[in-house]
């Protein structure tokens, strides 16, 4: 046994003793670390996933909600009726729900929240979710009807998003710093730059959570994350930032590592309007030049599932199309030659901050270089990336993980930053949006996946994994991340 091993074993023994000490009084507090701090605490007016990471389901709830497996279930709406024409939804609300400030939750709050989100001057980052709503009517305090302008097969799914949570008009003013929701935990304190503290909401309408006190700590630096975890300053780290450290946690009995899947399709986004990338042969050449497995190994230390299209592999409708873009540099060179570029070409590769992009970018660049495609790498901050790549379309290639669930619809938007304009697909997505029959939807989704895969719109790399490192005694944490959330309502310490 090595010295290091001895020391660790000794430390775990200590930890064990400590654990015995508190065993009498069941531990009910938890410190969860997250990589990013929310900019403010209003999930309905910013895109920052960090806000949902802290508040979704813990503090704020919507009419419907996601579960850990990705399914959508009832939330504040206990049940609902959908009209024949799929245009009118009547929601029956949970009775006896109060906001943390003591005010009652009623249909008025639902109307206020939805109207606010879709209003002219709304600053809701996902305003498109509410696009189809024609009107929201309060029937009685516990009933509300929502009328759609056109059928929307994913309306209930849309309402489960963090951007669609119910807020109260009385407390909207201070929501950014003192959020008031209906959830199982209520906001207690926020030390900016450090942590957010929540306490149990004893008046919670649903099942009381096991935890009484929750602290979210924000640790952006991976080294610090590792050190804090190892020193057990924190009990869990959701979406642990450095996959390279996971084997060390695996080997340490004090910890458990959950390797969940996220909704994040990590893709080599390609500017389909920029020559020579507008040539499908060139894009196909790029696709074949890339060795997904070595990207997953090199950038993510093995963590991640290869994908061949823009769809989450854990979704039942997923089609495995990785074979379309199998690693084949010779074919790649041949395709380039066919496209009239036997000597390759030069393009830009603009990388946002996450390590999957920065590291993956270096590997992609090396792999593309091997077939003659030169890339100029530029590392960008998010704000610059949004400005240059996303809004400015000033890029050749970029690497980004699209974390929004079920977002294949973006391929039907010709103005979307990868500028893919295919009327066939656009029509297909339109049909899909209006379809509510699950079987039909599944078929359409599979068709869409195949179309974009065979058009090589982007280079499809891997589904982003969400590793969660936690104290071995913690149970009930979400393994997967169907949405960005750290739902602690079902979390508890084992005996």
């Amino acid at each position, binding site marked *: 046994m090595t010295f290091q091993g001895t020391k660790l074993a000794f430390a775990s023994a200590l930890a064990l003793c400590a654990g015995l000490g508190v065993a009498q009084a069941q531990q009910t507090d938890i410190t969860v670390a997250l990589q990013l701090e929310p900019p403010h605490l209003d999930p309905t007016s910013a895109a920052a996933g960090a806000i949902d990471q802290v508040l979704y389901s813990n503090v704020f709830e919507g009419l419907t909600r996601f579960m850990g497996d990705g399914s959508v279930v009832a939330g504040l709406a206990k049940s609902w009726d959908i009209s024949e024409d799929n245009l009118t939804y009547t929601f029956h609300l949970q009775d006896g729900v109060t906001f943390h400030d003591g005010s009652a939750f009623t249909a008025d709050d639902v109307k206020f929240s939805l109207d606010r989100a879709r209003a002219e001057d709304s600053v*809701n980052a996902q305003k498109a979710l509410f696009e189809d709503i024609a009107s929201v009517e309060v029937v009685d305090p516990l009933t509300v009807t929502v009328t759609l302008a056109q059928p929307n097969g994913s309306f209930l799914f849309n309402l489960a998003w963090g951007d669609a949570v119910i807020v109260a008009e009385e407390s909207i003013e201070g929501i950014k710093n003192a959020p008031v929701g209906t959830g199982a935990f209520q906001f207690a304190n926020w030390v*900016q730059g450090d942590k957010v503290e929540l306490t149990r909401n004893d008046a919670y309408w649903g099942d009381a959570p096991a935890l009484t006190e929750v602290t979210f700590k924000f640790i952006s630096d991976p080294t610090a994350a590792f050190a804090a975890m190892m020193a057990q300053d924190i009990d869990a780290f959701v979406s642990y930032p450095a996959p390279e450290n996971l084997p060390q946690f695996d080997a340490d009995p004090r910890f458990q590592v959950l390797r969940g899947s996220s909704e994040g399709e990590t893709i080599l986004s390609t500017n389909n309007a920029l020559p020579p990338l507008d040539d499908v042969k060139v894009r196909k050449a790029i696709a074949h030049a890339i060795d997904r497995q070595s990207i997953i190994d090199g950038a993510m230390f093995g963590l991640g599932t290869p994908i061949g299209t823009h769809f989450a592999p854990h979704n039942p409708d997923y089609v495995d199309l990785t074979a379309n873009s199998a690693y084949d540099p010779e074919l790649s060179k041949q395709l380039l030659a066919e496209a009239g570029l036997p000597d390759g070409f030069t393009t830009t590769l603009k990388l946002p901050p996450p390590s999957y992009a920065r590291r993956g970018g270096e590997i992609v660049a090396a792999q593309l270089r091997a077939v003659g495609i030169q890339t100029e790498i530029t590392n960008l901050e998010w*704000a610059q990336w949004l400005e240059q790549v996303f809004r400015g379309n000033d890029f050749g290639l970029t690497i980004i993980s699209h974390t929004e669930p079920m977002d294949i619809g973006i391929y039907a938007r010709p103005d979307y930053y990868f500028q893919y304009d295919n009327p066939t697909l656009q029509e297909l997505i339109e049909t899909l949006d209006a379809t509510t029959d699950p079987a039909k939807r599944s078929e359409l989704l599979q068709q869409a996946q195949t179309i974009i895969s065979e058009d090589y719109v982007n280079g499809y790399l891997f589904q982003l994994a969400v590793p969660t490192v936690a104290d071995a005694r913690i149970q009930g944490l979400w393994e997967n991340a169907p949405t960005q959330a750290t739902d602690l309502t079902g979390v508890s310490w084992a005996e």
Partner: protein
Amino acid sequence: MLRYSLKRLLSLIVSLAIASVVIFLVIEVAPGDPASFMLGINAQPDTVAALRAELGLDVSKTQRYLSWVGGMLQGDFGTSYTYRTPVTQMIADRVWVSLPLALYALTLSTLIAFPAGIYAASRRGKPGDITVMGATQLGIAVPNFWFAMLLVLVFAINLRWFSAGGFPGWDEGFFVALKALTLPAIALALPQSAILARVMRSSLLDILSEDFMRTARAKGLSRRQALWRHGLRNALVPVLTIMGLQFSFLLAGGIIIEQVFFLPGLGRLIFQAISARDLIVVESVVMLLVFSVILVNFLVDLAYAAVDPRLRSRT
């Protein structure tokens, strides 16, 4: 003295005014829009426009500059675009980490540097001097973030004497908070103390060759007495200058160290604010840092006067 102070004060104000313009211009040309950043990739243009209006970003730059400066004059730095809290309060919170850290590091560095510098100067050219000087050369050459990494590796991960970072807040008790600042302070202090020790030594050596040191010895003071009674105070002026510079550096330069130890200080605030294009926070924090540098220089000048009577009578 009064005139001197007033003149310094005037140049301080002019500097600040120019600095505010420079800061505003530099930051405003930075590409990237705070509203788009906040709303992410699915946001629609009208939503972004609505947010811009809400944030007050839709008025002219001159107007924004004037309201920023006007607010600052009344102690109001405005409201953060992303955090939506008063910048004044955000800064106040962060200052309580950065300022103690800077002071802690400066104290450590002084505690190391003064004895080392004095020791080396009093043993000029002897093995003790050479050893100390060699050590300071090494100290200067070590990048503080690398040193910080090693400290974390050894003291937090392996030995677990300190937590790897974070800041529990002063509410948790003075020593708890101080302990959390210890590794960062050491990482910051090491290169600073090496520089300070060298300045101390060379300043002392300069003084030691002054005529009045010989006078002191002729009075019957021993080397040591002459050094302590006559040398130190005179050697202090260049040392004070460096300490002033170092303090400013520590206040702002802790950025990387604050990153490594995830301390919620000014440095991290500015990093976050820049990446979120929270322009008003960036502008205000940079302004504050510039102000602190200018203020520290002003105070150092006053401290000179306390040390050196020749400057006191300068009108």
